[in-house]
């Protein structure tokens, strides 16, 4: 066993991963919060009004990073599911399943903010715009993974089955995107382009990118928090979990 695989096995073992995640997690949350607040200040206060959309456009500082995160979280989940299925690494199973609800939440926020944005822009809460439709299908993919994971009793089998579904979804995402775009051109007329060809100003771009960074960091913090719980659940009977549980109750008492 070479040094790299040894390192993987060591950090991948549940107790080590639990401790490591616990150490990194607060930093992720803290950094995500700070970056997010700065980005919000930049986006909501410093950035100029849009000459067409007025202040309503400012929702993109939430909407767009969340949309990116929805996709990123899916690929993060699928990559971990792949590792879990091929090498049967427990930690990857937990990571993949921890990412699913977080990604679903980001996707949901994308849909809600898109809809909120649509009201002043299009005069309607929902338009069958290609992007929104793809986003909706992505949400269904997430819900399928979460639902399947919840429906199987054996935790490891559940993680494998849901991970397999996530991998199928990865193949499906570009196909859905392509087909929805085609569908949308077929039914032209109902579409209003969200992002016109207008150039985006530099004072708008930095809060956007900063917010994207903040959501990434926050995502990892959130995934790590869920991973810790997942590891405790999975190793419920093991000594290291018992030690943690007993230690905590003693501290409280």
């Amino acid at each position: 066993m070479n040094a790299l695989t040894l390192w993987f096995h060591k950090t991948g073992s549940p107790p080590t991963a639990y401790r490591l995640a616990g150490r990194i997690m607060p930093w992720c949350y803290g950094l995500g919060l700070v970056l997010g607040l700065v980005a919000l200040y930049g986006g909501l206060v410093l950035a100029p009004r849009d000459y067409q959309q007025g202040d309503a456009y400012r929702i993109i500082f939430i909407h767009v990073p969340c949309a990116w995160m929805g996709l990123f979280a899916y690929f993060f989940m699928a990559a971990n599911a792949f590792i879990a299925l091929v090498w049967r690494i427990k930690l990857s199973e937990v990571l993949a399943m921890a990412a699913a609800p977080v990604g679903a939440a980001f996707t949901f926020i994308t849909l809600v903010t898109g809809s909120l944005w649509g009201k002043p822009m299009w005069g309607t809460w929902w338009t069958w715009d290609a992007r929104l439709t793809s986003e909706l299908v992505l949400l269904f993919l997430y819900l399928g993974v979460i639902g399947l994971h919840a429906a199987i009793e054996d935790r490891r089998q559940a993680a494998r089955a849901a991970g397999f579904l996530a991998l199928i979804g990865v193949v499906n995402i570009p196909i859905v995107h392509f087909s929805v775009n085609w569908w949308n051109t077929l039914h032209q007329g109902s579409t209003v382009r969200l992002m016109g060809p207008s150039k985006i100003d530099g004072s708008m771009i930095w809060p956007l990118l900063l917010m994207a960074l903040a959501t990434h960091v926050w995502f990892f913090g959130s995934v790590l928090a869920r991973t810790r719980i997942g590891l405790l659940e999975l190793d419920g009977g093991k000594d290291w979990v018992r030690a943690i549980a007993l230690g905590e109750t003693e501290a409280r008492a």
Partner: protein
Amino acid sequence: MPPAPRQPEDHRDRPALLEARGLALSRNDEPIFGPLDFALHPGEVVLVEGDNGAGKTTLLRVLSGLLAPTSGEIRLAGEPLTLARLSPQVALLSHANGLKPELTAIENLRFAAGLLGLRSGLSPTTALAGVGLAGYDDVPTRTLSAGQKKRVALARVLLAPVGLWLLDEPYANLDRDGIQLVNRLLENHANRGGAALITSHGAYAYTSGTPRRIALRGGNPGGGGPAGGSGFSRDAAVPEIRDGFAAEAAPADRSNSGGEA
């Protein structure tokens, strides 16, 4: 497998049909069984004993390749068993008989023969007669009694051209004749160089010959095996392998109880 020799002594030098090393399975970190070490040689019948919930069925599912063990390995005729490459050397009789109620007995057997192949010298009709159901060829399986269904399922195992039988509770639902029938089938199978692993919760037993026994004591701490042995540990259901009560009468190899001959 090669043509079956008639004398049981001849099987001694051949590699074990089934070999388990450090085999263990746990679900949601609850140990189901293991770690187990045993080997099954041609001509041997091994009885897996244990109370309800001791993990007998699960053990058989693992040995057949349906379920991946948590740790340890299985070798079938020297080849490691993997999920991707299941062995054509195993016939499994599980709780669900695998029979279609809408089909007749003979249709069920024909399908099994098509799927798994046919043991030379047997046909679905003769196999059905061999389990005492001559004349039941065209009776829908739905109308058969539980014991008769079990017999049809046994005929399916008999038909398959395999060396290793994994029979889960073969005595369940059978009358006295049926129990003797199972014993006779097992004996014949062992004599032609096959091997069988059968489970029983103790109500019935393989009486003819003296099979080796594996006692499973997984799951419930209260239900221990027949022998006391070491104290129950949480992580492992301690396997208890002992030779049959009359080792001198045993026909097959008994070099050691661990089985790595």
